[in-house]
């Protein structure tokens, strides 16, 4: 049996739709049920519903053979996973944003940056040569500039609506992110045929 870890929420719905298109039907709909896992009608696949940040952990440690995770999470956490395929859905981007009313000519030294992505943020400021102080937050990042906790934020956005509603404006795009299909070295060696077939089936959908 192939165990698949998928991030709860939007990615789960999209993933289940793709699996259905290639003939894999799961017994329970995890997007409405409170169950955290379900098996497909053939008994060959088991899908786990986990937190987005936990997908690469399940895969890297072999609790799942494959996983569907956002590129943003993979870049930030750097777990030992093999990246098989860009799935194209779950599109969003990691951006730097600041208050609309505050006019920046650009990022400045000793800038205070609030983010859920300290590693990607640190790599970005390193690349542009700016000395930054990173403040790690766990949510509602948009509040940081408004309350004076930080000068700018680095956060994920799909539509830009939350930024807009909180009077923030995008200053730069750090990277674009979509969902990726991942596996671990042990599964990719021992369940080679199954994983390759699944990858080819999903990639031929587009």
């Amino acid at each position, binding site marked *: 049996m192939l165990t698949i870890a998928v991030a709860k929420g939007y990615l789960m719905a999209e993933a289940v739709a793709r699996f259905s298109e290639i003939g894999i039907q799961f017994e329970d709909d995890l997007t409405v049920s409170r169950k955290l896992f379900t098996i497909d009608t053939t008994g060959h696949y088991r899908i786990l519903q986990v937190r987005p940040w936990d997908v690469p952990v399940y895969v890297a440690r072999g609790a799942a053979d494959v996983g569907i995770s956002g590129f943003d999470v993979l870049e930030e956490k750097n777990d030992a996973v*093999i990246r098989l*395929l860009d799935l194209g859905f779950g599109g969003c981007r990691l951006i730097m944003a600041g208050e609309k009313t505050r006019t920046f000519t650009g990022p400045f030294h000793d800038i205070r940056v609030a983010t859920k992505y300290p590693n990607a943020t640190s790599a970005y400021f390193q690349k542009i040569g700016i000395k930054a102080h990173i403040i790690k937050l766990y949510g509602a990042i948009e509040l940081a500039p408004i309350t004076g906790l930080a000068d700018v934020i680095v956060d994920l956005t799909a539509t830009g609506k939350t930024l807009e509603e909180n009077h923030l404006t995008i200053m730069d795009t750090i990277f674009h992110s979509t969902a990726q299909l991942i596996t671990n070295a042990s599964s990719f*060696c*021992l369940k080679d045929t199954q994983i*390759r077939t699944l990858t080819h089936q999903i990639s031929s959908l587009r």
Partner: protein
Amino acid sequence: MQTNGFLILPRAVEVYQAQSSMYNVSMNLFTPFGVSEFLPDAALRHNKLTQQIAKYFEIAGFSPIRTPVVEYFDALAVGLDPHLVSQSIRFFDTSGHMMILRPDHTTPIARMVASRLSKTPIPLQFYYVAPVFRNTTTDSPMELFQAGVEWIGVTGPQSDAQLIQQCVRLLSQLGFTDLGVDIGHPALADGLSTADRDALVHHDYVRLGRLPERGTIEVARHIPELVALDTELRALNLHETVRYNTGLIREFEYYTGPHFEVYANGIRQMVACGGRYDRLISKFGYDCPAVGFALNLSLIQEALAQC
């Protein structure tokens, strides 16, 4: 991205502080992250396992060798892989010399062979069962137990095939029969663009744009050394066990010929790896070919405990 050391250390301190305050401990009774502390049951299992492995190697004709736990960094650095240097634990002694805790066995054995055994007739056959020390990561402890062999002074596909046979036999004797053996070769990287090579090293097949081919010798027909190895493996009836993996490319090429990685069902990481390294001993001043493999004993012991 950052090195693991950078990411892990602040966390280790954080966890230590959290633990101390949580349990109101005033004395520091905690051990560093990633060191082994065996209580009697585990220690007994560990001893039995290491004795079983030592006995296997001795019957196969290998002699024990022990390398120092601590060495001068400069002496070992001559032959040490850059990725091992970055993972190694280093410090200064009282006279200001930089010291290193051995991060692998192959490099110090190569140093010992070049400095002390260059007049001894080859082949030399050594085995070891002892820990190496590396910076703790989420995937690997600081004190990592290894068991392995170095077979020094041998050339040709027959020795490469026999090495793989020894590794597979030992693992099956330990109870691991559902194995996957992937074989690679440095020549697989020939002609690759820097970008493709980098994508393969980082296992990023999205960036590569395809899945690397893996299968029978047909995928590696263009590498004569692998074709010769396959003939030998066929003679040992191992050709069904192995797969040639065109994606098995390493960042720093320490191997000069065929090399392999072994995976076992139910174990999340590589359980063993090895191959041909003909230029390592010459870095220490003695030109001599060699092959060897190492088992990740920490992982094996963890898997056996769960059975």
